[in-house]
């Protein structure tokens, strides 16, 4: 988690460099991601931000969905590498569509019960609502949104958390006290 901002800066820098390089030649570009190419990452980001779109709360991309999926595809989810590699080229145009067009395309994929839709939907949900330890849910974005605190520290049993008058308003989740 701590290295994420650095990595993101590096990503942006590299992405810009890669974009410049792509104007001159194709192939052989280095990706800042573990698994995704620069193009694949852009497509996944576009998909993720329609699956959990940004509004008054962060969307999937701001909560590091691409980082989560990229990292897990080189880890416990590596059996899905092929599914991403095969499905993403056909969606290369997705990032260029308007949000309404993107939603229409995703709805069509859902209606056709496309396995890749189910896969990426589930992975984005994992990234957004799961434990931040795995590279998504950046800064507890979804848990803040739902007003559920992060894991308590030892010693919580010493405090009366079940007394009368306690509501979600009066009980301050610990992440709020960090300021």
């Amino acid at each position, binding site marked *: 988690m701590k290295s994420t901002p650095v990595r993101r800066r590096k990503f942006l820098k590299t992405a810009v460099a890669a974009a410049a390089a792509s104007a001159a030649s194709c192939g052989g570009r280095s990706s800042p991601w573990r698994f995704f190419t620069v193009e694949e990452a852009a497509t996944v980001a576009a998909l993720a931000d*329609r*699956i*959990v*779109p940004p*509004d008054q*709360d962060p969307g999937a991309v701001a909560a590091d969905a691409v980082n989560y999926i990229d990292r*897990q595809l080189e*880890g*416990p*989810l590596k059996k899905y590498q092929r599914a991403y590699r095969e499905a993403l080229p056909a969606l290369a145009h997705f990032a260029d569509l308007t949000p309404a067009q993107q*939603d229409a395309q*995703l709805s069509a994929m*859902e209606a056709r019960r496309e396995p890749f839709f189910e896969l990426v*939907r*589930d992975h*984005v*949900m*994992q990234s*957004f*609502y*799961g*434990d931040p*330890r*795995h590279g998504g849910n950046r800064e507890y974005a*979804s*848990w803040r*949104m*739902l*007003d*559920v*605190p992060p*894991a*308590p520290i*030892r010693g*919580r*049993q010493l405090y009366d*958390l*079940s007394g009368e008058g*306690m*509501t*979600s308003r009066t*009980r301050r989740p610990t992440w709020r006290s960090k300021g």
Partner: protein
Amino acid sequence: MALQRVNAVVVGAGAGGGIVAKELAEAGLSVVLLERGKWLTAFDDRKDDLRNQRNSTLGTGSGPDEEKNPRVFVDQAAKEHIVSANEGAYQNNAACVGGGTFSYGAMAWRYMEKDFRMRSTYGAMPGSTLEDWPISYDDLEPFYEKAEWEIGVSGNVTPDPFHAPRRKRLPMPPLDPNREYFVLKPAAERLGLHPFDIPMLRNSVPYNGRGPCMRCRWCVGFACEVDAKNGTQNTVIPIALSSKRCEMRTGCIAKEILTASSGRVTGVAYFDADHRLQEQPADVVVVSAGAIETARLLLNSKSRMHPNGLGNRYDWVGRNLQGHTYVGATGVFDEAVYDDIGPGASIAICDFNHGNPGLAGGGLLANEFIRLPYQFANMTPPGVPRWGKGHKDFMRRAYRRHIAIRGPVQEMPVFESRVQADPKVRDHWDIPVARLSGLSHPHNVEVGQFLAEKAAAWLREAGATLVWKSMPARYLSAGQHQAGTCRMGLDPKTSVVDKHCRVHDHDNLYAIDASVHVTNGGFNPALTIMAVAYYASDGIKRAWKGKAQ
């Protein structure tokens, strides 16, 4: 190479095996307790929404290792799938000291009297091997009590008019109620139901030298960070080890049960943590590896005298694999009902375990353990989008305002739902893996529909403005409640073990875990596994004529 002979070797340090090891060691027998997993701590199995025994998206929290322990699942189209421990079709329980009790939700149910007499109560069921247990609730009652006091149960079942007769109260009071409890209790009473605090193998007050529950939301599926959840790993196993007569060996994979040319069981061959093949001779062998692995070990123990495996003369080992079909309903309220006070599950009714018109059996209903955000993201009602702005809006609106009620359907055992030793696929130790196939009985669906409707009615009465049911389906059901594969019975032709959990035809081989359950109750089975383990240990001690070594 043969190791020094001991009186008893127990395979599996879970709910059953941990108790057997302690009981036999305390009685003076020398015991070796083999466990394939490790002795984990809460640091090894952290509060991780994506990696735990309940949600193994990124791996299991307490084993087994996904790479080394495949299984084969055969679907209804007869297609074989090689599955790993973090996939649903694997029917995983756990692989660690304590077994499932290390990470379970820890509901502490006694089965009811009728749960041991399902065939007598409801008659024969077409397509099912439904049968009575050869022992009764009364036979187990003292051992239920022993489990409640030695392992440690909190709760108060007095308001439940349906509970079976008991001599002693529970040793600890229930945990303080959470907010869901206060919403659901008056509603159940208005409906004429009988709600009460769920009995839990969890400390509500200091007990057995450990403190009470810290009320966090990472409970079912997780290790307890403050060790307030009572399993065999923090109760009977330490007692067994402190007796100096029990040695526990972790990281040990049982390969087969050894027999002499006479057919008599002589010990266990296993791979130790350094992958060396060892032979542990013993006077008594107890298999407590869980319904799937116990059956697999018996089936893999082939010899000239037992070409189809031990206890399998009549092809009953591995049959009747069952668990629980879970059903219920979810409701969204106008007000927040979420208070982040774990474990979440707090209130239950047993009004629908039996006596349901036209149905055989039923199940308890209780509010569900806390639904972590990622779990709830996949619990949307019909008509709510599964993604996009609509889904996010629903999460914001409903997460803190929803209650889920769930219950386990007492399943009708099916002969064709089974564990076999796979003829081709082998694990990391070159041992044939478990091959799972079959489908649960259609009557489970009928009972499940009935229970789901009752759950929905309870939520509506409590004031939920949006209620949807989670409907049952037919699937191979085993998982953490896996049971039935070494049925207890009087007739060796239609069962695997006798009423003392002793494998027919072998006076020194026992199966002591949920595999002996003839039927699995409309309840979480852990306390019954423990009671049966105390009961069967008592039998071993009575039958013991050998010399302590």
